[in-house]
């Protein structure tokens, strides 16, 4: 008889209710802490939010300063909103001179080290749109974090190469890999050149450098 075979005192209905309750209880206990811990992952990866405020152009220097055959290194500081500093707080701290920020270095060079012809024999002055376009094509602005494991790279004058001290990654003047383990060229900043020759960068790259 089927009833005799049913030795377990728990009925099918009771079993299903217990299962549903267990699942619900499990979800209530695990989902909030998990989402709590993964909040930055959700915000940066799914909601596309960044710690660096958007549309913040930072001035590096001028195109007239960029030398022939070697890079000029600028220290660049972006305001940073991370976790606790809401924008309002950020504004407040900025006024007190304690705003959160992230400091990086940008290596600026002319393509292949050659100063563009339009700048040769010309003093500082306003640039036309055509000149800006040409200079934009010929300017390299790369971040100083190695694309292998993020160590800071530096220019070696005697070798005329950009070298990473951690694992020997070598880049040429344009930031392209010429040796060692880096999987790609140095990350390039989004930049613009303005009429007065000023170079402005934004915290935006041609890829995801992660640690920058």
């Amino acid at each position: 008889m089927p009833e005799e075979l049913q030795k377990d005192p728990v009925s099918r209905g009771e079993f299903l209710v217990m299962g549903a309750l267990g699942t619900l209880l499990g979800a209530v206990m695990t989902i909030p802490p998990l989402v709590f811990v993964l909040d930055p992952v959700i915000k940066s990866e799914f909601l596309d939010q960044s710690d660096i405020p958007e549309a913040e152009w930072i001035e590096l220097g001028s195109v007239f300063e960029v030398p022939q055959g070697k890079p000029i290194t600028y220290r660049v500081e972006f305001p940073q909103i991370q976790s606790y500093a809401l924008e309002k707080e950020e504004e407040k701290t900025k006024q007190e001179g304690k705003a959160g920020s992230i400091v990086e270095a940008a290596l600026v060079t002319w393509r292949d080290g050659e100063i563009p012809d339009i700048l040769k024999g010309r003093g500082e002055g306003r640039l036309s749109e055509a000149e800006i376009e040409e200079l934009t094509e010929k300017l390299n602005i790369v971040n100083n974090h190695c694309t292998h494991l993020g160590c800071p790279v530096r220019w070696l004058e005697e070798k005329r190469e950009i070298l990473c001290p951690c694992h020997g990654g070598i880049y040429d003047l344009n930031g392209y890999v010429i040796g060692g383990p880096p999987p790609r060229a140095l990350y390039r900043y989004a930049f613009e050149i303005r009429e007065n020759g000023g170079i402005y960068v934004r915290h935006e790259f041609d890829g995801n450098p992660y640690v920058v």
Partner: protein
Amino acid sequence: MIPRIKARTLDLSQTTVDWLEDRTGLVTMLEHFLYEPVPKRGKWLYSLGSATLFLINLQFLTGILLLFYYVPTTTEAWDSIYYMMTEVYFGTLIRGIHFWSANILVVVIGLHMLRTFFSGAYKAPRELNWVIGVALIFIVTILAFTGYALRWDAEGFWAWEVGVKIGSYTPFLGNYVAAFLLGGDTAGPATLSRVFALHVWLLPAALAPLIGVHLYLLRKHGEFGSDFEYTRRLAELRERQQMEEYSVLLEEENIEEDGSSRG
């Protein structure tokens, strides 16, 4: 005079121990915890596990002490360590013990693992304890790495960045791992908070119960390769061989008897 004092002291200590044993069972418990037969071969190599446990305890103790001064913020982290090292009495000693015992711990765990491997102590029925040991090594390694970053000096900061970058190479999950370790999409105050939470709370909380299970399983199965175990296994093997030989002989005799009775 002296022998009498000695005898009295001995009496008094025995009475105290008996009193404690009667009321708490402490002596039996300690005996149970502290004594474990180990194989003759290898001898001192079997103390590497205990050495690991001792060093982990030392990490917990000195770590708790360091927490009295350490400030987990990007602006104060290194300053608080510098203050501890230069201004606080025994600061250099306490931090030195934490730092050096952490380094020695990694080495001792490696040796302990080698001993376990070469003595075959990972074999059945001890496989699960090997797996737990591997998980423990993994946790200790992350503890060492997060501890390095907590200093938030140039070395610690760049080491963490390299770690994040290594994490970013995780297949399919690289972006999420990096964002989790950074606490956003850039390194900053949230990064240090994460490192602190991992080093001081999450990882020790995972480590402690696993150590408990590791020790429980060790006690359950005992050390592998003890003389007793070899002797017992050899005796069982010989007994089995004798039984097989005997059964073969019996069969042969039966066949012969059958043949002679028919003939």
